[in-house]
């Protein structure tokens, strides 16, 4: 009970931090919009090919905005060594990790819904909004895996003197299975092959559980010096 309660304390603090500092989610949303515009120039998608490109474009945006946001969230902890007050408290490292991961998950989901909406508007692709109920489970599971690994790695990379710059280099290769799962399942659903997406969703569940287990096991080693 207090394990979850402690995680929620951390989560609430992160929400408050975003509300006051506007350093993570707001930047993510802004970057998403920017990349959307650039993709428009790069691919100039039209009605015929947009659905085949959508999943790829969206996941590239999710990945890079996500990395930016999660990096910022960790910097907020490392700045002024604020996380030390958690480390010296009775709250366990695992609760701390879980709270941070939940915060990242929440911000990522908000950013993704925002991006989906603007994708639909800017690329004239209303279909994606209609398919949202079908898309959500896969999107959620993909994002969950993304946040679980991302929380761990953003904390890891900000410990080095390169800081958050290192995050994509360490994180992207490791999270490839999740990105593959996320992008493929979304692509299938958007192109009327929802049936086949099922097995990818199962795979994502397995990945998420594995990543959660291993992150909980190793996170405490990242807060010792």
């Amino acid at each position: 009970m207090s394990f979850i309660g402690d995680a929620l304390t951390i989560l609430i603090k992160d929400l408050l931090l975003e509300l006051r500092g506007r350093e993570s989610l707001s930047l993510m949303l802004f970057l998403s919009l920017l990349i959307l515009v650039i993709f428009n120039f790069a691919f100039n998608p039209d009605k015929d090919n947009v659905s085949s490109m959508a999943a790829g474009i969206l996941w590239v945006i999710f990945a890079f905005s996500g990395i930016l946001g999660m990096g910022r969230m960790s910097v907020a902890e490392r700045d002024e060594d604020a996380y030390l007050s958690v480390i010296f408290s009775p709250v366990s490292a695992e609760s701390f990790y879980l709270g941070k991961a939940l915060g990242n998950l929440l911000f990522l989901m908000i950013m993704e819904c925002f991006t989906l909406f603007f994708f639909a508007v800017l690329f004239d692709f209303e279909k994606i909004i209609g398919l949202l109920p079908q898309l959500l489970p896969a999107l959620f599971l993909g994002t969950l895996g993304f946040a679980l690994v991302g929380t761990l790695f953003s904390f890891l990379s900000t410990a080095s003197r390169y800081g958050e710059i290192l995050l994509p280099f360490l994180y992207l290769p490791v999270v490839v299975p999740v990105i593959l799962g996320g992008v493929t399942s979304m692509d299938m659903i958007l192109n009327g092959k929802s049936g086949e997406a099922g097995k990818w969703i199962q795979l994502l569940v397995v990945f998420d559980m594995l990543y959660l287990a291993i992150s909980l096991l190793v996170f405490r080693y990242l807060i010792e010096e």
Partner: protein
Amino acid sequence: MNIIKLKGISKHYHAKTALKGIDMDIGAGACITVFGPNGAGKTTLLKIISGIMAPTEGKAFYNSRSYSESEIKKETFYLGHKTSLYNALTVMENMDFVCRLYSFKQREKSVESALKENGLWERRNDPVNDLSQGMKKRLALAKGFITDPKVVILDEPFTGLDIRWRSTILSKIKEIRRRGKSVIVSTHLVEEGCELADHVAFLRKGKLLFINKREEVDTKEIYRLFASMGEARS
């Protein structure tokens, strides 16, 4: 009774040795000031005592149990060079967060009295970013003391403060001492450091030059040591 015991502690960084064979006993309720020039290893030593940094060699004990099995971190308040505050949050929110971490009942009351005691009550709704350096330090101390730690470790608590703030912080530390906490302070301010302590230690190039009772140490000797290293302080 010793609350903390260090045995043969060494710490190596990539190409340099920060600490070499440190042995130290810290009694319950004792106050130790660690003097030393910059780069002598004071910060490393304090981090190791606090339990957030593992030594390369040697062992540390808290209440005669090795650190990994002890509650050292939970009963320690460590304040390093940085404030451990969330700059974007307000004074109140920072305090409230800590109280939640410790699952305190009656959070509002204890936060209110802690802030009033430290003259921060009027600034309670200001973000930490807007506070002066001295205010931040005071908030950081107030935030640490509200958790009622048994061991207090302060790394250079006077750095970057003017004389007025120095004396405020100094009296604050003395007050904690009276409450029976074990206090370990690092500084190179000889006057302030000696005023606080019942034990004085001197660190040079990662080695403990001496650790003696305050009465047995001549202040001039410490000045002389600093001066011999070209770092005279007043």
